[in-house]
Structure formats: structure tokens, C-alpha cells
């Protein structure tokens, strides 16, 4: 029976490997053949509907409000794209884990889901010009606000495991003691209890939190390398990519993303935050 089980395991593994290779072969072919999975701008216009992948639980970038309506900074831009293309808009709920697959299979035309540009992702999808940027931020109690990284030497900094903050401080500031947590809410409780002197993660996250929690200030709003957030389309869908790039460039005239900020992010980040530390206009960082 044992050998039998082994044989079946081997067989099924072979089957899966076969499916997997078949998948990659096909996607290689798809880009050169006529049976490409993406839709060009003309095809989208002809169909009358554009499908845009957004987050449904990442307030304030893409979320569904209490009335079931899509809201947020990404959604605001999505609505404008549909309007300027002159087509109806269909939102497709996506997750961080499947954004690339949705594009690779052409199940969405564009992903607007707080998509950070990385080299690894750029091999699989095509990123347009950025419309937002994100860096690290550091939040600390009002009683002892950290305004420069040097102040943190020999102090304890709270980070969440697996985030850019953890990598950044481990590599660049080994003198700072790191206290690591698995979850964001654990990290925030640790900060509130005074188990650490400050907490660092994406600035969008700490800025929003500090505003909701009096007694804490974001002393450093922008730190480390700046990551770009951009719309993504299926690899090689140049017609749509160019259209989006032109759109982003032309929207700079009316300062569209500043307006998007006012409409969607201002409530969360308040007036204390410098708009320019998040918003990117015309794709220019």
C-alpha cells in the first residue's frame, strides 16, 4: 500500500508539473500570437465596458462603504479613466495575492490596487506612470517625539515582521534595537503600552493611525527609498499602457490627483500631512 501511495503521489506530481509547464508555454505564446488575452483600447471601447481590479478592503485606497459603493483614492482614478474612455466601469474585487494573475489572464484590463512597482512584478505586468508614492514613516509618543533617525540609536523601534521597515532598519541601522511583531494591531498596542520608543512602517499607515490616536505624532514622514504606486496592465498591452500614460500626463494640468487626495484621503490624513509626501502628479516623482 505504501508503494502504491508513493506511485500515485508521483503521478499526480507529474500531472501538476505538466499543467504548470503547459501554462507557462501558453503564456509565452499568447504574447506573440493573435490569441492574446488582453484587450486593446479599441476593443475595450467597442465592448463598452472596462474592467478594473481594485481592493475592496484597503481603506482609504480601495474599499466598499456601508452602502455597498466602491470608494477610495484608487477608485476615484478608476472612475475618471472610465469616464475619459467613454465606457462603463466594472469593478473586479482583487487581493494582494492575485493582482498579477488577474492581469496575466486578462480578467481585468487595469489593476488599480495600491500596486507598488517592483522589479519582480515588472517582469510579469507593465506598470504605467505612478500616481502615488509611499515611503517609511516613524510614529512616536508626543512626550518623546523622534524627528531624526539618529535619535533612535540605543532605543527600541517596533516593526512588523516582513515589512519594508524591518529590512530597511536591519540593513542600514544595525545599532537600533528592533522589537518585531506579527500583526499591525500587536505593534500598535506595544507602542501604546510603551514597550518600544517608536514604531515604523509605511508612512500612509502611520499617518492615518496617528491622526486617530491623540498623543502620538509622526515625527518622520518620509524615510528610506520611495516606492512608486502605479496602475498596471497586462504585459505587452502597449495601446492601453500608452493611453493611461497620456491620461496621467494630461491630468496634471488640472492637478487631478491633488483633488483625488482632497476627496478621498484628506479625511483620513487630516491637514497635518503634507500632500506632496503622498501624491504624484503627471507621473513625476
Amino acid at each position, binding site marked *: 500500500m505504501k508503494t502504491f501511495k508513493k506511485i500515485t503521489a508521483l503521478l499526480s506530481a507529474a500531472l501538476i508539473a505538466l499543467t504548470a509547464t503547459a*501554462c507557462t508555454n501558453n503564456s509565452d505564446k499568447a504574447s506573440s500570437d493573435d490569441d492574446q488575452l488582453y484587450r486593446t483600447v479599441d476593443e475595450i471601447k467597442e465592448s463598452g465596458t472596462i474592467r478594473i481590479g481594485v481592493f475592496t478592503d484597503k481603506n482609504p485606497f480601495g474599499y466598499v462603504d456601508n452602502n455597498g459603493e466602491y470608494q477610495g483614492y484608487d477608485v476615484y482614478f478608476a472612475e475618471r479613466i472610465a469616464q475619459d474612455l467613454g465606457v462603463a466601469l466594472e469593478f473586479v474585487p482583487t487581493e494582494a495575492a*492575485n493582482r498579477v494573475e488577474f492581469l496575466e489572464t486578462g480578467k481585468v484590463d487595469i489593476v488599480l490596487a495600491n500596486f507598488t512597482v517592483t522589479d519582480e512584478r515588472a517582469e510579469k505586468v507593465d506598470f504605467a506612470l505612478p500616481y502615488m508614492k509611499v515611503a517609511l514613516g516613524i510614529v512616536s509618543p508626543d512626550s518623546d517625539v523622534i524627528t531624526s533617525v539618529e535619535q533612535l540609536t540605543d532605543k527600541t523601534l517596533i516593526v512588523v515582521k516582513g515589512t519594508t521597515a524591518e529590512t530597511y532598519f536591519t540593513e542600514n541601522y544595525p545599532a537600533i534595537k528592533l522589537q518585531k511583531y506579527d500583526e499591525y494591531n500587536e505593534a500598535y498596542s506595544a507602542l501604546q503600552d510603551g514597550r518600544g520608543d517608536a514604531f515604523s512602517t509605511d508612512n500612509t499607515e502611520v499617518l492615518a493611525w496617528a491622526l486617530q490616536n491623540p498623543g502620538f505624532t509622526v515625527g518622520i514622514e518620509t524615510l528610506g527609498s520611495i516606492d512608486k504606486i502605479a496602475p498596471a496592465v497586462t504585459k505587452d498591452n502597449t495601446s492601453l499602457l500608452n493611453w493611461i500614460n497620456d491620461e496621467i500626463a494630461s491630468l496634471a494640468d488640472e492637478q487631478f490627483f491633488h483633488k483625488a487626495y482632497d476627496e478621498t484621503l484628506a479625511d483620513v490624513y487630516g491637514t497635518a500631512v503634507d500632500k506632496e509626501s503622498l501624491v504624484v502628479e503627471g507621473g513625476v516623482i
Partner: protein
Amino acid sequence: MEGYEVIFAGNNFIRLLSGLWVTVRISLISIGISLILGFIMGTAMTGRNPFVKVLCRVYLEAVRIVPQLVWLFIMYFGITRLTGLNLSGEAASVIVFTIWGTAETADLVRSAFGSIPIHQFESGFSLGLSKIQLYIFVILPQALKNLFPNIINLATRMIKTTALISLIGVTEVLKVGKQIIDANRYEAPDAALWVYGVIFLMYFAVCFPLSLLSRRLTERKD
């Protein structure tokens, strides 16, 4: 806003219910088809044809080894890449859960029939029962009694596993809950407990009647 107010704010409760309906619909369709196909396959597995037995065994192990999430990705994204065929998220979910449910049901049916002692067959035949009579009056009642609790167990497992389908873009009840919690994360930070509480009750409301049903069906056979 207090946490409990979030449940009934806007359309939230209706959205939770329609999310639950998505969960229930997909599970029930899958379970229904799985039972039919699983019975056929399970019966085939108890037969004597070695080729059929090996084939069923390979299918069963292949389904079990690969996690359901991987099957969902293969069915939803993989099929589109391979063939260009664009299944909806719901259709892909029903297919995957049926593939899984059929395999598990078949194995349960096989073991239920297998657990009937051989003398039950022999005694039946010696009483002069035909093969059909033997199965209807002797074997099936005993086999079903073993089978029901396991089938119900499988059904509740399938209902709970549907939480995975939000990863292929289907918004089921748990995803609706996460959306509601997130939409209110600044106004009502403690909403999570309430929302998950309601979802817990909803899952319970669906799964508990199944347990009751199983209990009644097994009692009657006594």
C-alpha cells in the same frame, strides 16, 4: 460609531446576508453534485475491476494532495491561460468543490460499504434475497447509517472552505465582513468583534441544521 452599530449601518446586514447566500449556493450545488458523482464513483471503487480501482485511487489522491486554493487558482486562472476559456469565479468554485467533494464522498461510500461484514451478504443470499433486494434491505440501511455523519461532516467542511473563493474574486460572506470592518476602521475600530460574531452565527445557522438532519436520519435507522 459603536462597533455593533456597524452591523446595521447602510446596507451592511443585507450585504452580509447576500454574501451568506453566495456561500450557501456554491456549497449546496457542489455538495449536491458531489453526492451523486461520489456515490457512482464510490460504488465503482468497491467493484472488482482493478483498472477502475487504480484510476479512482489516483484521482482521489491527486485531489487530496493539492490544496483547494491551488485547485481554485488552476481552475480560474490556469484554465484561462491554457485554453482562453473564461470561467466565472462562481463556476470555477463549483467545479473545484465538486471535484473535491466527489473524491471525498466516493471514499466515504467505499469505506461505508467496505465496513459491512461479509456474513451480512452471505446471510442475505442464503435467505434467498436477490442482489437488489439484498442491497435495499440489508446492505444500504447499514451503510447509510455509517455514511450520514461523515457526509454531513464533509458538507460542513466544504461550507467553511468556501471562504477561500474570495481569492478568485467571489465575494462571499467572510469577505463582505472584512469589507465592512475595513470601511469602518477609523470610525469604529472595534467593529471586527461584532462583525465576526455575526458571521459566526450565520455559519452556525447554516451548519447546525445539517447536524440535526444527520442525527435524525441516523436515529431512524435504529
